[in-house]
């Protein structure tokens, strides 16, 4: 179920294609992004995520019959106007390392055409929000990676853009910085910002995103809500448990005959993959009761997004992806 605050289309991308010589980085993809959505782009390295973001933000020129509309404005014809709608946070800090935090903010404000007064007021607000007030006079090169990424968010938000583009924003950060950034992203969502982020982090995608686009080899191979993705692409659950006492070879054989999808783990626990959890739980109950066995540590686990992602990419490589 996709959580969409309203149906206003913020980004409408059609037939995006980008080649670098022989290599097709993005291969004729189309999608829409609605206002207030957080959309995650997942994909292995070289899938075309960053190139897609660069096409959307006008950094790369559109090729062929590609068309991008930002709030209904044609990107190719209104490049400057459309670029002002975006705030971009790169994976690696691209703030000027020899400038102080404050100088970076002033420079960024000037190239977005903000007045001195607006830059001053917005800078104060953002430095406070991202806990960087004490670092305003520090040179950017002296900041830690986490602080640099917070500065990047300040720079991206300075001109108060309605759309935020985050390119692997938490990559390589310590857990504390990751938490601060994730909290801020969710806060921005509450402020009705539309957020498009590429990430390798499945937990991040699962917990933050309203919608996920999975890309592989320049194509979108899935476009769903994280929960829908898990249900649609791998609806199975796993029941893991341990049996008290020593397990004889006969019992093991008997279990393998009784449950077709059972696996024995390294720690002697069992894992049943099931499509019908109630039925298999019932069978397990009967099995242990008839043999007077005692079940310990029983856990029920849904398929993770990571498993869905790996399966989808593998299937795409084998030409087996059937659902989009």
């Amino acid at each position, binding site marked *: 179920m996709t959580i969409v605050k309203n149906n206003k289309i913020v980004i409408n991308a059609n037939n995006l294609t980008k080649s*670098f010589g022989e290599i097709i980085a993005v291969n004729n993809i189309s999608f829409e992004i609605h206002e207030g959505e957080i959309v995650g782009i997942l994909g292995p390295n070289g899938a075309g995520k960053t190139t897609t973001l*660069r096409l959307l*933000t*006008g*950094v*790369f*020129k559109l090729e062929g019959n590609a068309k991008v509309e930002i709030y209904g404005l044609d990107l190719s014809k209104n*490049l*400057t*106007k459309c*670029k*002002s709608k*975006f705030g*971009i946070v*790169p994976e*690696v*800090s*691209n*703030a*000027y*390392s*020899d*400038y102080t935090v404050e*100088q970076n903010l002033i*420079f*960024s404000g*000037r*190239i*977005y*055409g903000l007045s001195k007064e607006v830059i001053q007021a917005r800078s104060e607000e953002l430095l406070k929000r991202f806990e960087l007030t004490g670092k305003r006079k520090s040179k950017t090169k002296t900041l830690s990676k986490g602080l640099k990424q917070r500065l990047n968010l300040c*720079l991206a938000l300075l001109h108060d853009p309605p759309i935020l583009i985050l390119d692997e924003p938490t990559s390589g950060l310590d857990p504390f910085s990751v938490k601060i950034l994730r909290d801020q992203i969710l806060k921005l969502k509450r402020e009705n910002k539309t957020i498009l982020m590429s990430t390798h982090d499945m937990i991040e995608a699962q917990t933050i995103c309203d919608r996920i686009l999975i890309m592989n080899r320049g194509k979108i191979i899935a476009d769903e809500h994280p929960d829908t993705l898990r249900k649609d692409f791998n609806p199975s659950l796993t029941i893991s448990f341990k049996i008290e006492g020593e397990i004889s070879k006969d019992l093991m054989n008997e279990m393998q005959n009784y449950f077709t999808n059972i696996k024995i783990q390294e720690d002697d626990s069992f894992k049943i993959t099931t499509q019908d959890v109630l039925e298999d739980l019932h069978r397990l109950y009967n099995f242990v009761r008839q043999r007077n066995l005692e079940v310990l540590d029983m856990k029920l686990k849904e398929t993770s997004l990571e498993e869905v992602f790996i399966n989808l990419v593998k299937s795409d490589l084998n030409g087996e992806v059937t659902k989009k």
Partner: protein
Amino acid sequence: MNKISLVKIWALSKKNIQLYIKKGPVLIFGLMFPFFMVLSWVLGREISPYQVFVGIISMTAFFTSTAISPVVLPIETREKSLERLLSAPISIQNILLGIIIASTLYSLIITSIITLSFTIIFWIPFSSIWAIILLYFGIFLMAILGSLLGVLVAAKPADMTSEIMLLINLIKFPLVFISGIFIPLGNLPFFAILLSFISPITFLTDLSRYCVYGTSYFPFLIDILILMGWIFILFLLNLFFHKKTMPKRLSTS
């Protein structure tokens, strides 16, 4: 070009001056190199102070104007800050103008100080205020021309400053040696005169000679028009090549 565009271009120029003026290649090729070149030219030789004055001005204007302009783009490609600029609401022309203005100002300031200092040291008898204005106008044109040449060489989408500096030096030194800096055009053999026409420095040197001596090989207006022609051609070449190569800076990074 509206007011907002001018503010953006000035912000870019200011940033380029603040961040790149103290970079190693700028100091070495913009200040140290012309200094030692002049020193090796004049030491132990009997050259008239006026000829030295003209040579110093031409070399300083050319070397300082080609010092900042080639280093900005490779450094910003390497440090990824170029992507920040390309994703901001500014055009490639604005980015290039930001570099050209910074480089021109740097060259103008340094060359003006040198000109003023050597005017006093050599007690150059300018015939009129008009000659001084004309000299500064020539320096101004060379500052723009050199800046454009530096930015043009940096159209190669490299992220290593050394790669671009090597390339610009391969162009700069022949241009200096074939120009009429070291030997006045009138004293050169015919083929050398023809060769010197390739170098824009020839025309600044000739113009400076007119301002100091009152005579020159070409009429001063021709010198000015040729320098302006160079500026026009280099500007168009810059727009053409940078539009082509700018996206490649990101695809390789």
